[in-house]
């Protein structure tokens, strides 16, 4: 980060191509240039502060264990040893797989049921539709901490504690109303004429949904997938509460537990953290726009 700063600041001081201040008289122009450099500086500092913890995490994870405390910020020598230790000592592949399994299953089920429901609320008529819709959305702002205890008791009586399947079911139940709400918004933008034309052609309602309308709602599908993937992968409270058998734990509770057991092995800790965020950051950097859309829409819920 710090190496970029001088060049970018210098670029900022030079008049940019924006052309917004060309009409201004000379003194106004130089004042404008000064505020612009100040703005650049502020943006650089804010981004640096935001990114620094991640760079530090990466740097620490690559250090040889004996140089963690008191060494320079940028390690002189790097080693992947901490990743190997995290991989084997923490049973990492297993927990990673649990996270992948739970997340994938949740996303698939949520997507299937939310598109069905969202489509019905947007395009089909049936008695009581409005009432059902309002009830489903009434708990959109309900925090999970408010129902964690009855949920726990329910899972216990279903014998679903300590199972990944139980966790998936709870995730799906909690996520569906909002995902349906998003999908409904996307389906509403599609024209009714398509449905009517397909009906005239004799297509069944499900076929119209799956073959005609669903492909047109691809942007909505992508948004739901990304939002759901992120929130399930990152979920901690329910996983921590419902699963205590080590072999079924997904990553987040494991990462939480590692701090207590390996509090002084910072390379191992940071290597474990890094491996858990790499898939997310990789996807984020590639699909940035969809991520932002998914998250800012999702923010209405979270």
């Amino acid at each position: 980060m710090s190496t970029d700063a001088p060049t970018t600041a210098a670029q900022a001081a030079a008049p940019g191509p924006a052309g917004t201040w060309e009409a201004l008289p000379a003194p106004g122009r130089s004042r404008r240039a000064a505020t612009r450099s100040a703005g650049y500086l502020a943006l650089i500092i804010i981004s640096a502060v935001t990114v620094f913890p991640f760079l530090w995490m990466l740097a620490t994870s690559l250090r040889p264990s004996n140089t963690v405390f008191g060494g320079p910020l940028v390690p002189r020598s790097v080693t992947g040893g901490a990743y190997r230790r995290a991989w084997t000592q923490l049973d990492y592949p297993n927990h990673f797989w649990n996270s992948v399994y739970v997340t994938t299953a949740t996303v698939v089920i949520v997507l299937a049921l939310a598109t069905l429901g969202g489509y019905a609320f947007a395009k089909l008529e049936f008695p009581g539709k409005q009432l059902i819709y309002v009830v489903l959305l009434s708990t959109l702002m309900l925090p999970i901490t408010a129902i964690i205890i009855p949920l726990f008791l329910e899972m216990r009586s279903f014998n679903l504690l300590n199972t990944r399947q139980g966790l998936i079911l709870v995730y799906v139940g909690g996520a569906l109303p909002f995902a349906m709400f998003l999908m409904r918004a996307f389906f509403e933008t599609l024209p009714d004429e398509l449905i009517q034309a397909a009906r005239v052609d004799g297509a069944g309602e499900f076929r119209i949904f799956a073959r005609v309308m669903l492909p047109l709602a691809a942007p909505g599908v992508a948004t739901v997938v990304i939002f759901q993937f992120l929130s399930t992968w990152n979920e901690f409270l329910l996983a921590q509460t419902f699963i205590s058998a080590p072999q079924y734990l997904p990553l987040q509770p494991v990462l939480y537990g590692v701090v207590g057991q390996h509090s002084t092995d910072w390379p191992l800790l940071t290597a474990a953290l890094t491996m858990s965020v790499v898939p997310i950051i990789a996807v984020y950097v590639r699909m940035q726009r969809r991520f932002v859309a998914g998250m800012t829409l999702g923010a209405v819920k979270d």
Partner: protein
Amino acid sequence: MTAGALTTRRRSIRRRPIGYLFVAPIVLFFVVFVGYPFLRSFYLSLTSWSGLGSARFVGVRNFQVMADDPVFWKVLGNTFLFTGVTTVLQTVLPLLLAVLLNRGWRAGVLFRTLIFIPAVISLVVTGVLWQLIYEPNFGTFNEILRGVGLGGLAHPWLADPHTVLPALMVVSLWQSLGLFTLIYLAGLQGINPSLYEAASIDGASPSQQFRSVTVPMLRTVTGVVVILNLINGFKTFDMIYVMTGGGPNRASEVLGTYLYGLAFGSTAGAVPALGYATAISMVIFVLCLAATLIQLRISRRSADVD
């Protein structure tokens, strides 16, 4: 919409039941995993129960206990303090940053990409990472202070009851700045540029334009940001549970971590107080509900104005 209106609008009887089939799975999941637990929590909050045997109905006693529980009041105070400060910071600073970003920068996309990264990272990773950064002896935060000659300020940030909440607020701000900034940016891009043109023809300075165009035009977005911050604050759990567990000596205990400890944290042999913990969860629910209703009222009123 009445049933009569529906029948006149669509006479095709064949199409009616299929709608139910489409929504049935959602309704089923909702009833089992949201609706029933939610209703049951009302009942549970009126019982005394350790989780074994059957719950004993005690009426409003849990709420009377709550009123006399000094820990509850301390925790409620912490929750309000944390929520209040983070709401103000996380409403104002993202707005300013969004306005700055919206001016158009050569590296604008890069800045946006970078500041948003914390929003996609789990709160567990965030918490663990910042725990290491705040570590008193070797943590980067104190190292940096020593490095710039402010070693006298080096401090066990999370272990001191006076600094633990501010330290957590900083992490909260770090984590959510990008998300709220991008929400504001989306709002800013919806403002008609001719409003700014008109204002500058009238001789309004940039700061006047900010006050008389940007702020009023972003009223709805700001409302959303405020309500999200309030709800996130009232229900906050993950980050605090991971970083401090509510300590030291309950200095960072909030409603979420307190009720969690009462219900699930009894590894030391204490009896789980499920009824009392559920009563506290009702408080969280009521706070979030109040925030939502106030927001609905305000947005409805501003919609009337527009």
